[in-house]
């Protein structure tokens, strides 16, 4: 026989099969196959492969929780490979399988392996704790081992504690050294002993347990749940049973309380209100009768269907109380209007009650409180009706600060006169209320009633001598009065007022009185004295020429001095062609902002006088850093349009092609004097392009500014237009037949431009008729031509679904 190919032997077949099973992760089959193979010959490769199969099977068994079986196979694979079985998994499986003695037998190997991982101490601590109840485990430790030596002492301590022998327990614990595996358990038991004398101190003591101790989480639970206030029920019921029992004992819970907790555990977090009702009623003894009554009554607000159940258990509720609960129910459901109606009904019923009712005695107060409560329910924008109701509440019950504040603020915009009336009334009731006095002071100053403002300021200072606002006000009130006296031809009285103002400014930080005094003295031909005072003012303004100049000019303008003194003018701190620095500009702005509102006109005039300086000074600011923003915003708010425009143009000199959008915006607003409706058609288009630029750059400040001014236009246009709904419904809408999206963008822009051309050729009368007919808007008052064209333009942009950018692009390309 000539056999070049030897047929596969049985061993080969078995080996192939074993390896196939291993590759397919059929570990049980693989193990059996390999074991069979190794019976005939101990092959090292096969042994390694068997070990691999064992390891695979171990993981399968662990996933099924079959730890004892897994451990056998793990140890087998270790023997086959000659490697140590000891790793954290093995340790974990030994604990799970309850094979503590194996851990104890190898405690030195274990410790050495776990030390670098920081787990040696916790594992030793664990074995020590287990040894308290496991004599077999204890016996595995050598007699000299710390666990063997300290376990009996620790056990005795526990037994002593459990039987109430605190002294014995304490002295046992003292014998446990600080390096013992029982040291954290010692701390725990000490804390429990201390709990009896001082609960808080005992719980705090548990903080001494090391953070890496295996009993640290237990200590944390005890800290939270064994407090004097008792358990946090929700958390408590989630704890393991044994821990619940322990805590229950530490908190002194009896059977009733434990039953309560067990029932509470069964309730689901989102159980229906009826279940809550029934729970409370079932455990009313443990919970307390009064508490359950209150709980169930409150529950009626969310669960009115429970009324019968409530009445069955606690008796009927008076009708008035039912109405009150109904009102609370309406409130909790967010039905403010219904709640208000229910409260009104409550009042009606209350008034109809016989006189013996307690509430009847203070019926007025109740009525007032209900009115105020209804006012608060209405939320932020009180209607005139609500304000009247609040006013009525003060007739019934005059002493309510908050109601006065609501009325003062509620009427502030719609009826300032009425607001003032309420402020006066508030002061009659609360004459020394700082808030009301401050409001009155501001209001008086605004009305230029300076004596009144000063009187309020003095009262405030009487109550609060450190009140800087009042001090400033009083100073300004005296100065304002001084200006008035001067204009009335009484310079001597003016000087007296200035002197009073200066008495208040003990640190001499305000330069204005000196300028004022100096100018008045100059007018009285007391030149030297005039120069002295003005120089003092300049000195206070720290020789900053711009600041001093502004302060001086503001007073000149406030006094309406037409002919200025040459001598004092010669003191002018600003040399010709002075180039203000960045610091000058910042300080000048600061000074300008501090000028009171009453002197706004004088300030505006002063700034115009200094306009060349200010415009020149703008060049010192860093445009790229936006340092101009403060100035531009201030000038805009002051309505110094011309100066603002010049300021912006000077800043933009360096920009050949395109200004920074925000500067361009300020310039535009300056040119139209803050009224966008004044912009012409082209300027309007340019403004819209600017707006889109700002939007795309995401400059929030600029965007806010745009929206503020656009909002004004929208509000104005809305107030002009009157919508005729019937006419709109009846009107034939021939727009319905036109669908702009049927056409491409270029054509739509063409339609827009054609229509705009037609519009521009219409007379005003034709334009108005077009708006009435085509837009369907009846104009309540006359708009100018530009305003009407803007309205039509907006309409056409919408109709043809094009934007200003599209139009601009089309115009640029032609």
């Amino acid at each position, binding site marked *: 026989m000539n056999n070049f190919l030897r047929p596969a032997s049985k061993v080969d077949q078995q080996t192939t099969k074993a390896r196939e099973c291993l590759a397919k992760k059929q570990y049980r089959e693989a193990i059996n196959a390999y074991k069979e193979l190794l019976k005939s010959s101990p092959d090292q490769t096969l042994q390694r492969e068997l070990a691999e199969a064992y390891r695979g099977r171990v993981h399968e068994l662990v996933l099924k929780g079959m730890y004892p079986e897994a451990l056998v196979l793990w140890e087998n694979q270790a023997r086959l490979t000659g490697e140590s079985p000891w790793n954290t998994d093995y340790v974990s499986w030994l604990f799970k399988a309850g094979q503590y003695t194996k851990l104890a037998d190898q405690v030195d190997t274990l410790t050495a392996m776990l030390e670098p991982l920081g787990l040696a101490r916790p594992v030793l601590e664990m074995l020590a704790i*287990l040894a308290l*109840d496991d004599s077999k485990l204890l016996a595995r430790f050598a007699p000299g081992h710390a666990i063997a030596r300290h376990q009996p002492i620790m056990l005795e301590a526990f037994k002593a504690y*459990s039987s109430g022998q605190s002294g014995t327990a304490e002295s046992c614990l003292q014998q446990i050294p600080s390096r013992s595996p029982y040291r954290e358990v010692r701390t725990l038991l000490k804390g429990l002993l201390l709990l009896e004398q001082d609960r808080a101190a005992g719980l705090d003591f548990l903080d001494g347990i090391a953070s890496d101790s295996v009993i640290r989480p237990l200590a944390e639970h005890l800290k939270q749940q064994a407090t004097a206030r008792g358990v*946090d029920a929700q958390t408590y019921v989630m704890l*393991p049973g044994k821990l619940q029992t322990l805590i229950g004992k530490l908190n002194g819970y009896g059977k009733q309380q434990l039953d309560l907790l067990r029932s509470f555990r069964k309730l689901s977090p989102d159980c229906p209100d009826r279940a809550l009702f029934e729970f409370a009623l079932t455990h009313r003894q443990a919970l307390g009768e009064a508490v359950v009554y209150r709980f169930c009554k409150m529950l009626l607000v969310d669960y009115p269907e429970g009324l019968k159940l409530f009445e069955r258990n606690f008796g009927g509720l008076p009708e008035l109380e039912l109405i009150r609960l109904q009102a609370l129910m309406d409130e909790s459901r967010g039905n403010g209007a219904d709640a208000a109606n229910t409260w009104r009904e409550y009042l009606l019923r209350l008034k109809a009650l016989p006189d013996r009712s307690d509430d009847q005695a203070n019926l007025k107060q109740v009525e007032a409180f209900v009115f105020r409560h209804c006012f608060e329910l209405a939320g932020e924008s009180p209607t005139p009706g609500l304000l009247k109701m609040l006013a009525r509440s003060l007739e019934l019950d005059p002493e309510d600060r908050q109601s006065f504040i609501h009325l003062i603020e509620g009427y502030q915009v719609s009826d300032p006169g009425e607001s003032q009336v309420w402020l006066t009334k508030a002061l009659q009731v609360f004459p020394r209320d700082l808030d009301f006095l401050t409001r009155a002071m501001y209001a008086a100053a605004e009305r230029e009633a300076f004596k009144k403002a000063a009187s309020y300021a003095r009262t405030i200072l009487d109550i609060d001598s450190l009140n800087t606002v009042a001090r400033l006000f009083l100073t300004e009130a005296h100065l304002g009065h001084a200006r008035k006296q001067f204009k009335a031809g009484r310079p001597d009285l003016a000087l007296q007022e200035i002197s009073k103002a200066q008495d208040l400014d003990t640190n001499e930080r305000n330069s204005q009185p000196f300028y004022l005094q100096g100018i008045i003295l100059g007018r009285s031909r007391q030149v030297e004295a005039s120069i002295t005072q003005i120089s003092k003012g300049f000195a206070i303004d720290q020789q900053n020429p711009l600041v001093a100049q502004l302060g001086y000019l503001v007073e000149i303008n406030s006094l309406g001095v037409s002919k200025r003194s040459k001598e004092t003018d010669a003191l002018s701190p600003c040399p010709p062609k002075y180039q203000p620095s960045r610091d000058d500009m910042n300080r000048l702005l600061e000074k300008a902002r501090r000028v009171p509102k009453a002197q706004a006109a004088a300030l505006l005039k002063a700034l115009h006088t200094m306009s060349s300086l200010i415009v020149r000074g703008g060049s010192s600011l860093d445009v790229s850093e936006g340092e101009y923003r403060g100035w531009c915003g201030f000038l805009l708010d002051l309505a110094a349009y011309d100066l603002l425009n010049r300021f912006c143009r000077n800043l933009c000199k360096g920009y050949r092609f395109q200004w920074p959008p925000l500067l361009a915006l300020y310039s535009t607003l300056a040119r139209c004097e803050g009224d966008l409706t004044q912009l012409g058609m082209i300027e309007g288009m340019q403004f819209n392009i600017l707006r889109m630029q700002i939007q795309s750059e995401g400059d929030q400040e600029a965007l806010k500014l745009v929206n503020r001014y656009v909002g004004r236009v929208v509000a104005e246009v809305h107030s002009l237009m009157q919508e005729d709904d019937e006419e709109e419904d009846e009107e034939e809408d021939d727009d319905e037949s036109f669908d702009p999206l049927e056409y491409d963008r270029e054509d739509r822009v063409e339609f827009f431009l054609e229509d705009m051309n037609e519009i521009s050729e219409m007379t005003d009368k034709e334009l108005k008729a077009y708006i009435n007919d085509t837009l369907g808007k009846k104009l309540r008052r006359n708009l100018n031509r530009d305003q009407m064209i803007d309205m039509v333009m907006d309409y056409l942009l919408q109709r043809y679904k094009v934007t200003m950018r599209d139009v601009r692009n089309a115009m640029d390309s032609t």
Partner: protein
Amino acid sequence: MKTPFEILGIEEDADDQAIKKAYLRKVRENPPERDGAAFQAIRKAYETIQTARHRLKYRLFHYESPDLSALVAEALSADSVQHPDQKTLTATLSEAALEQLLHRLTQNHAA
């Protein structure tokens, strides 16, 4: 769910003076550095009912959403300490400690 009267330990018909006295007594017993939460509760209770006007408002408009956990917790305020028996104590210790240790061993393996 304790009422302000219960927190201050007074009857519901107490007058302003009695309420103030009770409040001062309670804050002396519960200074903020010892138990901040209790101090705040006492303070809030006092502010809610300090005058007749306050009490009237409270009676008319007070609404508190019923909280069963709070109700149960109030009924379970810790009283005297009982001593759990040794077996319960050591068994609880073992169970809790083992759970913590196994968690740490698993974390270590994952790392």
